[in-house]
């Protein structure tokens, strides 16, 4: 018997999942900008995690083009998180990616002691597969319903309607990034401000939910201002 009753102690896991569009339209500047943005956000993300020691932030990434595939399959502690560049080519099977994420949000492998997972969907186009089935599969899971969902549209061709459906909360809008600099801003915001909010959530009551049925499990902070449209908007 140890000096203290009970077994091992652990901070509550907080799963953070990048869901990245790697279709052919992302090829070139866009995929490179996305790779750079995620790489640049890592130190800030690690800092937020350090400031919240009672949340064990674990990062994963899934990519979709022709089908979907885990880019980082095993949850990696944010302090050990490294980004391997994505490459683009193929279709936009977003629905498949969501159903694969849904599988990972079942209990098990999830524990009911986790903090609300954060899903960040980044896309520049329209799904080429059954997006609705994928989203339904996600929302069928208890943890799927409790996820904090953020979406970032790269360029004018992204399907904002689909990205809004993914969020499932009309108070939170998809973020429109038309250049690399704005993309970095949004990626950094999602991986720091949103992560911080999910790291220390207060209990929410069903009474609160009754008043705002679409509200997510944590308050989502206001996103950064993308600034006025300019000639830098190349996408």
């Amino acid at each position, binding site marked *: 018997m140890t000096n203290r009753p009970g077994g091992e102690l652990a901070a509550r896991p907080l799963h953070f999942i990048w869901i990245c569009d790697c279709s052919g339209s992302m090829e070139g500047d866009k995929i490179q900008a996305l790779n750079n943005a995620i790489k640049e956000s890592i130190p800030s993300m690690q800092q937020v995690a350090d400031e919240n020691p009672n949340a064990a932030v674990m990062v994963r990434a899934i990519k979709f083009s022709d089908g979907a595939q885990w880019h980082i399959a095993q949850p990696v502690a944010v302090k050990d998180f490294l980004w391997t560049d994505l490459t683009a080519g193929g279709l936009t099977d977003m629905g498949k990616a969501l159903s694969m994420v849904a599988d990972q949000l079942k209990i098990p492998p999830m524990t009911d002691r986790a903090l609300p997972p954060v899903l960040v969907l980044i896309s520049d186009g329209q799904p080429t597969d059954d997006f609705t089935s994928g989203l339904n599969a996600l929302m069928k899971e208890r943890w799927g319903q409790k996820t904090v969902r953020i979406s970032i549209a790269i360029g004018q061709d992204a399907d904002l309607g689909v990205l809004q459906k993914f969020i499932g909360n009309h108070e939170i809008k998809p973020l429109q990034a038309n250049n690399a600099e704005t993309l970095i801003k949004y990626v950094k915001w999602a991986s720091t401000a949103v992560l911080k909010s999910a790291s220390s959530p*207060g*209990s929410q*009551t069903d009474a609160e939910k009754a008043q705002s049925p679409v509200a997510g499990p944590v308050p989502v902070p206001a996103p950064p201002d993308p600034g006025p449209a300019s000639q830098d908007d190349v996408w």
Partner: protein
Amino acid sequence: MVTKMPATDHIEKVSWRAIGRSVVGASHIKADLPNQDAIAWLPGEGIGPPLVLAVSDGHGSAKCFRSAVGSRLAVTIATQTITKLQEESSHGLDQSSIKRIAEEKLPQELVRTWREEVEKHIIAEPISSQELELLEKKAGAKACEAVKKSPILAYGATLLAVLVSESFILYMQLGDGDILIVEDTGDVNRPLPKDERLIANETTSLCSQDAWHDFRVYFQSLLEQPPALILAATDGYSNSFPDEANFQKIGPDFLEMIRINGIDNVDKKLEGWLREYSREGSGDDITLGIIKRMRQVDIDTVHDRIDKLAESSNTHVSKLNEIDSALQSLSSKVSEQKSGLEGFRARVNDLASQKTFVDKHEMLLAKYGPVQEEMTIRLQALELELPAIMQLEEENKKLADKVSKAQWVLAAAFVLAFASTVMTSVLWLQPSSANGSSQTTSNQNKATDPEARGLNERISPADNAPPQPLSSGAEANSGSRRDRRNQNRRSRQP
């Protein structure tokens, strides 16, 4: 020596004891938030039956900014209301009636009373503009509107309560948190099934419109074997463990600790443990209430332990006395050693200064050793030369004497030469009479001093004239001297 108390009928039936603690969460400390949990039991001394214990977790969302008040009201109302039910049930109600009341009426009564008390609190302390501004800043205008519309939201809290009577145990729960029962074997069970809806910090609450619907109630008759231990905790506790197995291990661990060390000992350590769970686990406020069935064996164990403690305390006292005297003796020895050390230190200092002197001496020796050797060699050489030097000195002395004598002779010769020169000059210059007398004197001198005579001869070769006869005056002078000598002889005779 403590006398073992006879077991009373009351204890032999079943005695229960309640302890508990509530601590502010590690992340709440960082965020400067208060402890939003609460715990209470009745009767206050925590001994029953009857015994009621309640814990409550005030919600942490921004809208529930008065949840610490809500949780305190919840545990106070629950312990009072349930105690009242127990008192009524003891007046002839059968168990099925009590069960029905507990399941149907009690939740409504609890929610109704809580809401009434919250409304009273709102009237006494209306929601302030500062509170609303802070809420708007944290959660937006919509959250602010929601609280203005329904201020009771600000007080949202869960409730877990356990009533232990002589014949039954009642378990009630609204919202998240955990109630565990631990059997004598250490096996752990949940009397109430988990509410699967309650993940990701979402919970049912006393502030919900039909909150009484969400109460989960379990009635346990004590015709069955009563549990050894009942644990009621807010969710900050279970969330500090990675899984259910690690969490449920608290059941057998607490049971064993209480059996071995006694419930008071565990009570003392409880707060520190709860802080540790929060720090290393969830970071949330943690509250734990423990109700322990005091078995006869526990009580006997306590008495045995008291007897043993009394014996061992006597032994310890005598040992302490021995240690005390040993310490005193040691202390005086230490003083002696200390003064000895002082002397030693002074000696060391002295030696150190001597050492410095020796070092300097050695340094000088090293420096002047070769010079000394050379001097020794030279001295030896001088000693060898000493006889020759002494001989030289002797000779030198002799020479000096000779020189001295020669100087004297020379001086006399000069005097004589001078005198003869003078006399010769006089003789040559003066008349013959005068020459006669002078010649006489000169002749006298020649007659009395052969050396001078010789010298005269050498110095005055020009005076080669034949010697002159002696004058009468010379004779007269010679006779006169003879007369004086004779007179002197006569005068000395008697």
